[in-house]
């Protein structure tokens, strides 16, 4: 993989470790409201100290701990959304491309086009507003709009792979369609799907932050990066660190997944390899 891809991979690994071991690594409970010195100005009260390296928010909560716990939510949303939409998209796309005919006309001609024209974030906002903000509803909404990308990619791969003679050979041997799809089509179509999943993680993390920023994500007091950004808006002038650290976390994560996605694409496709 190229250098940026490796950098991205390291960042992702760090964020996953933080997410998984947040209870061990974080210095405080992210919901604990610690007393702020009332005799100081707002700026002085919130600013980073030795006890609170990223500072405290207006309710006295430790920002470092909240950013670390925020990684849990982001990663959980990212992994869940990518898994759910990749599995659904792969199944629908594989069926569409492998069977062709009326199955394909229904799935790709009709179903894909029902979901595609909506600006995805608008559809997610509408769904969450309808279902009520919660972590599961957020994951559901992002998966419902996310699967189409995987389905389209998988359909194209299936269309390509099914023309190979080894698929015809399997049919001549009497293999069932399910066996052919699982054993022959999927393993030969998986590479671009991995790239897509990596980019999908970035998209899901960003979407989660956007929706939480709008108050449509995980309800407070759960420490979501997007929600933290929203809370920090009012203190932009006096305590920019409240905005900078969660913002940086979102940016680094999204960037890292994009680097890894691009790195994988290049690494897996020898035709694109630079010298």
């Amino acid at each position, binding site marked *: 993989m190229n250098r940026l891809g490796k950098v991205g991979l390291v960042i992702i690994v760090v964020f996953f470790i933080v997410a998984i071991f947040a209870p061990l690594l974080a210095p405080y409970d992210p919901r604990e409201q610690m007393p702020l010195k009332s005799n100081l100005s707002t700026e002085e009260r919130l600013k980073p100290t030795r006890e609170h390296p990223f500072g405290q928010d207006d309710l006295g909560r430790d920002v470092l701990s909240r950013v670390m716990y925020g990684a849990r939510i982001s990663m959980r949303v990212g992994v869940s959304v990518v898994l759910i939409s990749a599995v659904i998209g792969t199944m629908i796309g594989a069926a569409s491309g492998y069977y062709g005919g009326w199955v394909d006309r229904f799935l790709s001609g009709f179903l894909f086009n029902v979901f595609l024209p909506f600006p995805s974030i608008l559809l997610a906002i509408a769904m969450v507003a309808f279902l009520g903000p919660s972590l599961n509803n957020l994951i559901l909404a992002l998966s419902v709009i996310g699967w189409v990308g995987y389905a389209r990619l998988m359909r194209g791969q299936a269309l390509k792979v099914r023309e190979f*003679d*080894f698929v*015809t*050979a399997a049919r*001549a*041997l*009497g293999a069932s369609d399910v*066996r052919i799809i699982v*054993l022959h089509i999927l393993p*030969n179509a998986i590479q671009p799907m991995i790239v897509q999943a990596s980019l999908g993680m970035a998209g899901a993390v960003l979407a989660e932050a956007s929706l939480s920023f709008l108050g449509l994500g995980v309800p407070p007091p759960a420490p979501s990066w997007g929600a933290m950004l929203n809370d920090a808006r009012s203190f932009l002038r006096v305590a920019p660190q409240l905005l900078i650290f969660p913002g940086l976390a979102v940016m680094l994560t999204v960037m890292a997944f994009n680097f890894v996605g691009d790195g994988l694409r290049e690494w897996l496709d020898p035709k694109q390899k630079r010298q």
Partner: protein
Amino acid sequence: MTNQPLVEIKNLKKYFPASQNQVVRAVDGVSFTIRRGETLGLVGESGCGKTTVGRSILRLVEPTSGEIRFDEQDLMKLGRGEMRALRRRMQIIFQDPYSSLDPRMKVGSIIAEPLEIHSVGNRKERKDRVAELLRVVGLDPDYANRYPHQFSGGQRQRIGIARALALNPDFIVADEPVSALDVSVQAQVVNLMQDLQERFGLTYLFISHGLAVVKHISTRVGVMYLGKLVELAPAEEIYTNPLHPYTQALLAAIPVPDPDAKREAPQRLGGDVPNPIAPPAGCRFHTRCPFATERCGREEPEFKEVSPGHFVACFLHE
């Protein structure tokens, strides 16, 4: 052993849909039989429908109409389950040894796949069978743990043959099995196929685009042009006494490995194969035939027996 042919095809047609409600008449009324234990060579230019004929017999493409009998069973009337059971007895070898083996599977899994699909034996027995099959096709049994990309074209073709043999079939469609190989390797693979035929009593439909390759292995040879069979005769007869002008042209196209050899003025064919969406009226070959008369453009010659076992569709031989 009965005298009934193993494979019998009657008036097979396969039309593929093309643009604007037109159809490509890939195969347009082909009939022939394949006797038990023989090799029928099927020859013709690319696009003449020979591959479609082979795949129709295995029902890998669904024929538009016609009758296909395998061991006296009408394949067109079989249900899914019956057809699946029958697939154990008929197999296919492909032209392209690179696309015919799944690059993500090890050779052992590729050859064991037919056994798995039809639930033959347990894991250990299958493994032994794979080793045996690899030996049968002249490869080292240790190759089972390698991936297809580690092999040459000829070796890969042997792996494909091993897969086809796994279920002890009676009948194998060999779809240009050596066309993609080096000339030096072609002979090895053809010889292997002949050995296997004797050893296991196989019946072959051997498809090729040139008459040279099928010469050694075929019992009888059929020549196809634009979706139709134009000549069918015992192999020797085809080479010594070709009756159809198209067969004569194909024979003349075989290179002679002697630079000093004097050849009769070769009958080169002018032009290209006509569009199978709109094949010429009358005899389909008349647009390129050196002997074409006005009648050839009007009427279609009947495919009939002119001497015992020798069929031809040409007005020159009525």
